[in-house]
């Protein structure tokens, strides 16, 4: 064991660096400054700020707030220091324990994986659900209205009053059965050939002409409406916003600082992370929508039949998306719905008895209102 070491001394007052010879004693570090002053630093009061890594110089500081410093270039110094003073220098880094640090780091990374997965798969959806239930419906309504203004302005609205009333009757039977008084549901039909429907937070359901005309019966439309209604009742938009925020926080915590180039990587990670939540919401809307149909007494086979129609006509992009969402595979959705549909109701209800559905669904051929002419007021 070497008891004398060459080092540098910085007095904390000037930028001069003095070469000194250090002596390791039982109780402290002993050295003489170039001006002849003798120093003795008790081990207990020494702090180590560098030298915890392979090949790094050892830096020992003493005093506050502008410490005096000793630097020893040779990393072997630490090992001898621990040998010379054993328990008195426990607070200083021991190179022999570097392996243990590695083990801790590996352990931490495994724990990090576990915690991240736990938060992502369970924590965030649960927290979003809990928080969303405390968001006042009026806020959702406000958000929904502002999105609605944008969406409703993309095409003309189909406003034929009699046929719209028929569709509202279908909707009315569903909302009555759902008996969720927080939301006032309002349906709007827009003259676009795309097969699509949207639910906006707070109560707007938007049907595009393409979808309406693709339904064979009012009960099929009820299937679509039930699904969209559940997006509203289950607050999927609000939850998506909360999930998006917390996923960003999670990713920021796991990846460190968000600057420059990293922002792109983090953005893609977030987008990927969000897909799963979106699919979960679709699943829930499907299940709960089917449940709602059953409560009303509609044969769930109608809903499934419509999904089949969609799957057949749009094999590549089989969708009834709520706004900006990604969906599970249609086959899986149909399989799940078929499983839940059993047993079918003994006496299925007819939603619009005695009405000609083909005539109702063609309402966009009758009376249209341009978005510029009538602005939405509610």
């Amino acid at each position: 064991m070497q008891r004398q070491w060459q080092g540098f001394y910085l007095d904390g007052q000037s930028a001069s660096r003095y070469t000194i010879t250090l002596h390791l004693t039982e109780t402290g570090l002993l050295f003489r400054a170039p001006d002849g002053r003798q120093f003795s630093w008790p081990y207990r009061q020494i702090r180590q700020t560098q030298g915890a890594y392979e090949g790094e110089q050892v830096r020992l500081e003493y005093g506050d707030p502008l410490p005096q410093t000793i630097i020893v270039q040779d990393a072997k110094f630490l090992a001898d220091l621990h040998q010379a003073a054993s328990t008195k220098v426990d607070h200083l880094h021991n190179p022999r324990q570097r392996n243990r640090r590695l083990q801790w780091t590996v352990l931490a990374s495994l724990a990090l994986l576990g915690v991240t997965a736990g938060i992502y798969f369970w924590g965030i959806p649960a927290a979003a659900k809990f928080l969303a239930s405390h968001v006042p419906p009026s806020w959702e309504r406000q958000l929904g209205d502002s999105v609605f203004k944008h969406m409703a302005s993309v095409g003309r609205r189909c406003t034929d009053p009699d046929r719209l009333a028929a569709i509202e009757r279908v909707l009315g039977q569903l909302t009555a059965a759902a008996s969720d008084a927080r939301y006032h549901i309002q349906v709007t039909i827009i003259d676009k050939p795309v097969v699509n429907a949207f639910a906006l937070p707070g109560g707007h359901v938007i049907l595009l002409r393409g979808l309406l005309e693709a339904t064979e019966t009012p009960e099929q439309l009820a299937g679509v409406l039930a699904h969209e209604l559940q997006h509203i009742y289950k607050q999927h938009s609000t939850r998506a916003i909360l999930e998006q925020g917390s996923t960003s926080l999670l990713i920021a915590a796991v990846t460190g600082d968000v600057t420059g180039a990293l922002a792109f990587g983090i953005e893609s990670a977030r987008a990927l992370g969000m897909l799963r939540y979106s699919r979960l919401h679709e699943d829930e809307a499907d299940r709960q929508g089917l449940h709602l149909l059953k409560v009303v007494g509609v044969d769930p086979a109608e809903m499934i039949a419509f999904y089949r129609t969609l799957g057949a006509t749009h094999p590549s992009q089989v969708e009834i998306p709520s706004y900006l969402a990604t969906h599970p595979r249609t086959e899986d959705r149909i399989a799940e719905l078929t499983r839940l549909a059993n047993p079918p109701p003994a006496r299925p209800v007819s939603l619009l008895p005695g009405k000609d559905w083909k005539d109702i669904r063609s309402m966009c051929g009758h009376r249209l209102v341009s978005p510029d002419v009538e602005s939405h007021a509610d």
Partner: protein
Amino acid sequence: MTLSTFKDASVRLSCGRCTTTHRVRNIHGLKPGMSASCVTCAAPFFVVAMPEMSHDGSADARSTRQIDPDRSFPAADEKVTSSNVGKKKKPRTHTTVFHGSGGSLFGIHLVNALLTLVTLGVYYFWAKVRVRSYLFSQTEFAGDRFSYHGNARELMSGAMKATFVFGVPYYALTNMGSFLGSDMAVNFGFQIAAWLFLLIFIPVAIVGARRYRLTRTSWRGIRFSFQGKAWDFIKLWLSGYALTALTLGLYYPYFSTNKQAFLIRHSYFGNEPFKFSGDGARLFRSFFTIYFIASASFLLVWQAAYGVVGLFVAERLKGSGGLGGLIVVMITVIVSLIVGLLLFRLLLLPYSVKEQRYFWEQTSVGSASFSFPITTWPYFRLKLVNLLLGICTLGLAWPWITIRNLRFITDHLTLTGVQDFDTVVQAYDAAPPTGEGLDGFLDTGFDLG
């Protein structure tokens, strides 16, 4: 490197670059072909041939040769310990070296991330300190490493202050309009107010962060500091911003240089001020060139697009009269603006390289001045690889990206003409900068993290 034997029979190496002498502990350990670097100035050298050895290990020949300092050699096991006996001071060149590795930083980061998650984010500030301490202590200048003295408590209170003094009012201003349900004009007013507020906050944050970071950084035990007043920087910032807007961006190189001048000239190492002699006029030409190319291509593309689109769309819009023409103009303006801005962004890269190089070259401390000879292509490659790394690893490559950026700086930055560091003395005000009220807050050192 010169090898010589002293009276006490020890063998010493003296460095030709920084004139320091180092004792060789085990002369037999030196073998031809071995390489090492000077402990003080990091000048690389390698052993060309060994002199005849007498049995006591002393040598008398001069046979290790200093090599071209710009070529780098892996530092082999150093068999030399430094002893700063060279008292004759000649102006020298000092280099910066970064010793850290992505792996170590990743290890630190993993533990940090775990603790941040488990403490619901509270550990963030401690994590920040750990990362900075690591990066600072792995950065060596002229043979000595930097130290970071910040602590999590200070970072946390800084973030709190910023949140309450700026974050909350800013958030309130941006959302006031929609909250009150007021009309467009009032809402617009609130947005403008919020924007102005942000415009003032940015310079305050820059000065605050710089003040905090410099006072918490030391080299050879001497703290750095920043003495500029936030109010002066706000004035500089607002007038620069306004002039840049009024001149359609042409004032930018002057604005940028003035900002840099303010930040450098109020920075100190101990009692030694940093000096900056940059002049925006020197950058104006290169800036004007890219500005001109970008605007010219905007006009050309617009003309071309207007011609082409006009031909096709005019047919279809015949009925709609003046409105159709307006739409065509708008579409082509947008397309050509995008082209012009993309081109500008791309050309800005060589400009920013030039600007960084110029800024460093105009910066000096004492009798020594910096040099930062970077060129466009390596800088472009650095940024491109970082971007790809960031995207492909979904952000997980953060430690390596950070280190690549740092190493790019340390690989290029040198300080030439140093007479002496010994004259620099500590000028650190031990009490952390604090103040009363908003006026005091402006000059409080705080860091946003």
